[in-house]
């Protein structure tokens, strides 16, 4: 049993189910990657884990404790952080204010964490007075990840953190994500850049039509000829 797990999740936005008996989990200090075609339900699975979706069946556990009925806000206080796929920064607020808002639930001094984020993403320190809406796509993703780190989460969930960024920045971001995982945080991310993501993944999930198709270590999935042919472009 992983630190964060969604077991046999079934549910959707309305009458029709999007997720069918889907199971996803991640261990502390590890990186788990979810891949699959567009519309497979990857984002939906992330939302389900974060309590933004009513599950008809299944459960979400963190450290063995059942949190299925908690609201997203309560899950934030339980140590979960989430970077959604779209609209993941406060565009009218400065970079620094974005980070402050990330730490909203904390009552203690946040300067230390903010400096850690600035160490991780030096460009943000330079741009800290600038509105996040005026940053480039890659810089914005860094703000988004930084914002989620401000609560000092135990689990960090990222929905396509490298969407729309250049290959170099993508490698950068993956390096940073590895660093984050090394500090003991469980990182669960959805990725379109499946090959690169699986290379850094301890665990990989291939989702198709809301159900688990393949589940294995990142390396094993990369080596699997069926997975390569169908999902990694040969």
């Amino acid at each position, binding site marked *: 049993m992983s630190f964060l797990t969604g077991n046999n999740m079934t549910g959707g936005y309305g009458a029709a189910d999007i997720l069918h008996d889907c199971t996803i989990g991640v261990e502390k200090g590890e990186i788990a990657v979810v891949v699959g075609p567009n519309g497979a339900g990857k984002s939906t699975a992330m939302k389900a884990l974060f309590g933004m979706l009513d599950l008809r069946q299944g459960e979400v556990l963190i450290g063995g404790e059942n949190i299925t009925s908690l609201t997203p806000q309560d899950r934030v*206080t339980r140590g979960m952080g989430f970077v*959604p796929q779209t609209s993941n920064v406060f565009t009218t607020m400065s970079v620094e204010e974005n980070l402050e808002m990330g730490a909203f*639930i904390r009552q203690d001094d946040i300067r230390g964490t903010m400096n850690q984020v600035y160490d991780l993403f030096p460009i943000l320190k330079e741009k800290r007075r600038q509105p996040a809406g005026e940053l480039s796509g890659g810089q914005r993703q860094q703000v988004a990840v930084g914002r989620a780190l401000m609560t000092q989460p135990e689990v960090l969930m990222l929905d396509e953190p490298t969407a729309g960024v250049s290959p170099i920045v993508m490698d950068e971001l993956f390096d940073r994500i590895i660093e984050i995982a090394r500090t003991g945080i469980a990182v669960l991310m959805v990725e379109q850049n499946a090959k690169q993501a699986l290379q850094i993944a301890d665990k990989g999930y291939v989702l198709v039509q809301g159900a688990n198709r393949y589940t294995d270590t990142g390396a094993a999935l990369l080596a699997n000829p069926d997975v390569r042919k169908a999902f990694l472009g040969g």
Partner: protein
Amino acid sequence: MNFLNAITLIGNYLFIPGLTYGCQLALGALGVTLIYAILRYSNFAHGETMAFGTMVTIFATWGLQKLGVSLGPLPTALIAMPVGILMTVVLCLVSDRVVYRYHRKQRSDPVIFLIASIGVMFLYNGLIRFVIGPDDQIFTDGERFIITAREFKTLTGLKEGLAFKTTQGITIVVTAVIVAALFWFLNKTRTGKSMRAYSDNEDLALLSGINPDRVVMVAWILTAALATIAGTLYGLDKSFKPFTYLQILLPIFAAAIVGGIGSPVGAIAGGFVIAFSEVAVTFAYRKFVSYLAPESWQPDGLLQLLSTDYKFAVSFSILVIVLLVRPTGIFRGRSI
């Protein structure tokens, strides 16, 4: 000399009244914009909220006057205002609890909220007429003028006088203080920033652990305070008549929309744009021109673009033009 007379004339009839009225509209528009930014609908009950706050302030003023409390040269209403604000906060929070909260839970369309707010408007409207009646109430006391036209004339030796009423001075000073305090709150405090965050991106605010109920509550408290202050200043300046608070809704909405609804800076800019346009278009320029033009060029008519009866047409025209040319308003509305 003629030039100075012309300037004084403009100052007396155009600049000072425009500035005062602009302050009143700006405070009103700030309340409308705040509700729009947080609850995402146009609150048609705002004019009546102003009237309600003013009404309570008037009762408190009368009470204080009975007790013999006074502020000397300043109107007693200034110390009565906290009572008005408090009661208006209660009214707004109760209305939110009874009417709007349900629609928030239902995630109703903005247009449903808007219609609900019209219902609330009629309710307040009836309540106010039931309690204080539809008639004019004058509750200004203290010194009437900071400087009268006569004093100004003897002081400067000009033919034109410049009168500056106490209520005008108070309006300008109070507005400056309130606006500065509001901007400090929104930009420097944790709660203020969380309101901007909620307005910017509601879902992300929830993911950051910001409590939406608290944000909404603070928005109502601020709006109630702004409405009471705006209404009281307007009432002090012009006298309190419930019907005028229904009429002032149009220029207030025009101000909020022209500035960019949801933007506090826009609400203030919009307030002055509307106020100065209204005053400038209905001002008779005859005397002004006669000071500047040579003898032979003296105009025959009043040189007034629009009679004051049509002053509401001004805000309406500006509103239509802005919506056609730049629908987001001067300061790109939505999100505070």
